[in-house]
């Protein structure tokens, strides 16, 4: 069973195709990083998954059900636009949202203090939301999202507005939830966080899917292309090697981009001409992959 299934989903706002024929399958028990530049259609897609807006065409299934309203109590959703009742206390907000998500009173009496404790807000439980700092607000929002112990958690930019300590706090909870077999989809701009958390990467640009694969696969496919080397003596020859497409020098180090060639061939070529002091096949960061892929897709369009 797929946790989420999108089949040829389209949504346009006036002339803008916000989501263009998107088909995605999200497997149960995995963490998905949902990436894309601003305005790529991430939030629109997530809202359609949550049945907050309806697609113009296409089919969506959540937790094996086409009727999203039926399974809402099994989903936790944290929207990009955060908001809680400002005049209510943290405890009451959490209890209220738990209640309307279908958690019974007995369960809530246990879970609310647990979660307040877990997100380090126990001391603030009876303070009004408007008295909380932005970071606390964010953590409370996260607790609201997961108070119903959801099978599927969808987080739109969960790390924005959090300091590194709190980012780690949320990250650890996400990892814990993955270990419990929950499916997590989150969108983010913080690439290094995505890198540490994701099993799968979904990258969209201008409403179209441009990457849907495991993080490992994405990396190995991209990794062979960049090598960092340090040589003794004159390095001018490197640029003229047949397999080299670009060279960027940073002090002694050279960052070399290769055209589809085997890195071992390149090393051999270097060793014939100079002494190699260091040789490192670079694993591209998600950041670079993002920049490359989105750049390429934009170039294709224009």
């Amino acid at each position, binding site marked *: 069973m797929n946790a989420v299934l999108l089949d040829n989903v389209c949504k346009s706002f006036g002339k803008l195709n916000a989501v263009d024929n998107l088909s995605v399958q999200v497997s149960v028990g995995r963490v998905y990083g949902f990436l894309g530049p601003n305005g790529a259609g991430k939030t629109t897609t997530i809202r359609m998954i949550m*049945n907050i807006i309806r697609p113009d065409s296409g089919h969506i299934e959540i937790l094996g059900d086409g009727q999203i309203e039926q399974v809402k109590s099994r989903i*936790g*959703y944290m929207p990009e636009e955060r*908001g809680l*009742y400002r005049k209510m206390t943290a405890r009451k907000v959490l209890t209220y949202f738990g209640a*309307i998500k279908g958690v019974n009173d007995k369960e809530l009496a246990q879970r609310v203090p647990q979660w307040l404790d877990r997100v380090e807000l126990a001391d603030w439980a009876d303070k009004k939301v408007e008295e909380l700092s932005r970071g606390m607000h964010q953590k409370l929002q996260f607790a609201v999202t997961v108070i119903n112990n959801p099978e599927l958690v969808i987080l739109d930019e969960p790390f924005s507005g959090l300091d590194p300590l709190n980012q780690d706090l949320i990250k650890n909870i996400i990892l814990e939830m993955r270990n419990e077999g929950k499916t997590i989809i989150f969108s983010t701009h913080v690439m290094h966080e995505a890198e540490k958390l994701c099993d799968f990467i979904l990258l969209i640009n201008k409403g179209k899917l441009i990457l849907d694969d495991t993080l490992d696969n994405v990396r190995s496919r991209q990794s062979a292309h960049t090598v960092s080397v340090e040589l003794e003596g004159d390095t001018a020859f490197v640029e003229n090697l047949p397999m080299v497409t670009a060279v960027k020098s940073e002090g002694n180090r050279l960052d070399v981009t290769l055209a589809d060639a085997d890195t071992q061939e390149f090393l051999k070529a270097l060793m014939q001409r100079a002494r190699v002091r260091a040789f490192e096949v670079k694993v591209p960061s998600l950041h670079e992959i993002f920049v490359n892929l989105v750049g390429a897709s934009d170039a294709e369009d224009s």
Partner: protein
Amino acid sequence: MQRILKIARREFVETAKTKTFIIGVLMAPVIIGAIIFFTSRIAGDKAGPRPPIQVAVTDLSKQLAENFEISFDDYNKGNPNRQFLLQHLDAQQDANAVQIQGKTRLRNDKLDAYVVLDQDILEGPGKIRFYTHKPKPTDFDAYLTIENLFRKAVENRRYQIEKLDQDLIAKLRYVPIERVEIGSADDKEQIQTPIQGIVNMMVPFFFMYLIFLGMVGTGQQMLGSIIEEKGSRIIEVLLSAVSPFQLMAGKILGLAGIGITVMALWFAAAYAAACWQGLNVGVTPQLMVYFVIYYILGFLFFSAVLTGIGSVCNTIKETQSLMMPVMLISIIPMIAWFKLVQSPNGTMARVLSFVPPVTPMVMVLRLASGADVWFVEIGASILLLAVAVLVVTWAAAKIFRTGILMYGKKPGFFEILRWLRQS
């Protein structure tokens, strides 16, 4: 359903805690009590002082000067703060010349009023002609008094000519009236003061006003609550847990609870105040039943409309232009209430009874005025209102669903029509 109730409960509790609500609930009975208390004392109130008013008179009949003096002296003695200074502009040969002189002085602000009595005023069809120049609204009261003083002078002169005894006439004309409400038993008889007449007029108005306040007041709370959820971006979190319809239904239900609570409190307060002042408020149980039915339907209609309005706006300010037509229609019965109470089965009352937003107000007004309203009319108006509630709720649900996530530009009329056509 359980979720709807949860939403309703929160809406109720949070609204009941706001300052506006508490002040509104507490202040309204205080104000109503104060009005009832002061109306009973206002009757004996004397008008305040004003500067003396200059009046000139030209008596073409040449017989009345003495009577004027008596009338004006009497008045001036009784009202030292509100004097009239009377001067005589007597006609010599040319009656026109003196009138032109009088009017000129009036134009030059030397006079506040100029009065000419025709030559045949006493025995023929002659008139008292009363001239003013750019009259001030504050002087109207004084003008009425001047008119009366002159009329009385002419009257008295006529009595003298006919040789009639003025005191005798006054005695003959005096017929006192005592109004008594007999109540359910002999010992319940109550002499009615003039204020009771006012109360009898006011009770229907009060009922209508309660409906108006209830609908509009709680409607405003609805607007505020939607705008808050929209403004602080809570909507999306809510919609991740419940459907838009559940959210809307919960809100309406919660605020209906508020409305009924407020209504009960006000009603109790008004009833207590009336009893305290010994006023008889004729309210039958039947009227109360109709009141509740009309109030609930009216409330549902109103809150559905406001839900629609609230969901397409981002700030309270933006809602105002959309609220304007709704409010304009709603205050029609407030403006026309006097006419409606006087002829509760008139054409206007009947027609307005079938205009949904004002149906509850007009029907309650008619029923409370004690008129026999044909039962078919009652039934039909309730039915029509109920159908209107369903239609408006349906439309509001559609607008709510789309509008609530729209930020930025307010959608136009045609765009909203498009939403209604969407599935």
